[in-house]
């Protein structure tokens, strides 16, 4: 069995992994980048729509163009890239980690001082959202539909119903319409859409595709091929309301009902996942609870902008290179706590040797109007910032200059704005 030795092994060649590998390489580490598919780029390969890179490049790029900017650098970097390489498991060793990899040569083992997990996320499926009925063809996730249309040139249906108003579902509503399919409507079980407002405007409104909120698909009909779906109104708990069922003839049901970080490898190493982010807990360097094991991108938490996925990859890559080269001191950590209607704040803890500007990502758990975010450490208030509006689909990024010593936990709290406070900012 072939054995490889490297400073940093990056698992997953999507936007997070590309950025992690490039940064680790730039920081002087020897890097191996492992990708299970035949081409690097991850999900960006099939995201042919534009809107990527506005934050990072100040341009509206398509997915392949955004990935291409990193691929050009990878080609010149000397990073060893292994495609068609599937990491089946990771073990801890005395000197770091040992990755079991199934690749073109068969089985091989990679010994790495540090590992970056950039394994992305998976789509939630029909069975995970309790849709009853048989299993006819024609029921597929939005990402699968995107793969068929954009990479294989195949239209998965002519009369499509889309369940879920996530961004990929909205993007596919437009894409299917442009390719000549009829999109009968986008159904969302929650009272408000979960995708970005701009995607509702440019993907649905532009093409007169109706959006139905507080409605869900409860059953599929058809034995070989999908013939119809049953749609019901939902109550405030997202439960179907009896007596509201309506049958809609269609030949494709496309699901855009959420993404789940992919963390089989982290779980295999005994890491527990944060129930809020569904990814491992990490510090400001994206280091997990295991020394030398880093996590970034959508494996850590589902991001809505690739620009931030790349940023977290760079942070993880820098951390992994520093760790592999013995430049990362083991310091004690303080927790980061989230209060009020905050879904989560990332990172979940800070190592106390913090000297630089620290990037935080957070997401509101529910839509709130003018609200004030406060960051405190003990009695000291480090930040007070007003937000005009916060919505769960829109992740927020915050840069804080933290004091060199953190005596206590860092507390993030979000409170509705008190009347008259508006003028203070």
């Amino acid at each position, binding site marked *: 069995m072939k054995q490889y030795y490297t400073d940093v092994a990056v698992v997953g060649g999507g936007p997070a992994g590309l950025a992690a590998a490039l940064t680790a390489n730039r920081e002087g580490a020897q890097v191996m980048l492992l990708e299970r598919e035949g081409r690097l780029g991850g999900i960006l390969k099939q995201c*042919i729509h534009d809107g990527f890179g506005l934050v990072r490049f100040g341009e509206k790029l398509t997915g392949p163009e955004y990935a291409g900017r990193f691929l050009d650098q990878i080609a010149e970097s000397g990073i060893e890239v292994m495609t068609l390489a599937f990491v089946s498991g990771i073990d801890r060793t005395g000197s770091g980690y040992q990755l079991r990899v199934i690749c073109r040569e068969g089985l091989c083992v990679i010994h790495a001082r540090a590992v970056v997990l950039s394994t992305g996320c998976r789509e939630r499926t029909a069975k995970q959202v309790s849709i009853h009925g048989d299993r006819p063809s024609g029921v597929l996730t939005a990402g699968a539909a995107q793969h068929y249309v954009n990479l294989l040139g195949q239209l998965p249906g002519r009369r499509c119903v889309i369940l879920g108003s996530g961004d990929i579902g909205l993007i596919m509503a437009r894409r299917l319409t*442009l390719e000549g399919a009829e999109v009968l409507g986008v159904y969302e079980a929650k009272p408000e859409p979960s995708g*970005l*407002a701009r995607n509702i405007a440019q993907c649905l409104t532009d093409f007169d595709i109706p959006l139905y909120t507080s409605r869900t698909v409860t059953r599929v009909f058809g034995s070989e091929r999908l013939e119809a779906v049953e749609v019901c109104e939902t109550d405030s708990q997202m439960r179907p309301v009896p007596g509201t069922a309506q049958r809609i003839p269609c030949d494709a049901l496309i699901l855009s009902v959420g993404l789940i970080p992919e963390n089989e490898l982290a779980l295999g190493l005994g890491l527990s996942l944060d129930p809020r982010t569904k990814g491992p807990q990490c510090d400001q360097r994206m280091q997990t609870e295991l020394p030398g094991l880093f996590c970034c991108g959508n494996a850590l938490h589902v991001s809505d902008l690739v620009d931030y996925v790349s940023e977290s990859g760079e942070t993880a890559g820098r951390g992994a290179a520093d760790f592999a080269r013995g430049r990362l001191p083991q310091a004690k950590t303080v927790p980061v706590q989230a209060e009020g209607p905050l879904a989560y704040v990332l990172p979940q803890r800070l190592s106390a040797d913090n000297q630089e500007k620290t990037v935080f990502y957070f997401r509101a758990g529910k839509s709130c109007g003018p609200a004030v975010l406060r960051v405190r450490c003990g009695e000291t208030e480090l930040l007070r910032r007003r937000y005009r509006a916060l919505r769960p689909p829109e992740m927020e990024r915050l840069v804080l200059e933290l004091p060199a010593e953190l005596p206590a936990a860092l507390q993030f709290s979000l409170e509705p704005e008190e009347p008259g406070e508006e003028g203070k900012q």
Partner: protein
Amino acid sequence: MKEFVCILCPNGCRLRAGFEPDGETFRVEGNSCPRGAAFARTELTAPVRTLTTTVRAVGGERPVLAVRTAGEIPRAKLMEAMEAISRLTVRPPVRRGEVIVHNLLGAGIDLIATDDLAAVLQGGLKDVTPL
């Protein structure tokens, strides 16, 4: 005054815009940058969009090539552009950024490749990169 969402960036500002009764003064509310104000005016007078789609490819590693308009085209011409693009076939290899059609629909905008697409090698299937 019309209400709509600005699509220029992920902020998705909710705009209110329109001409004053005098028919000359244009008013925009809700934008958080000057680009939003310019967008509002275009959107209400002659809306434009970037079109991203695929073109049929023969002899390439994949059967389709991702493309986009190099700039924005009138929103009303999107389906007409799709119709024109559906009649095209490209022969790989194609490089990202390469022009596929000059002056699409005579709108003054080129159609460009957004991905690389290699040609299938003479050696047969063993050298073809899977999807």
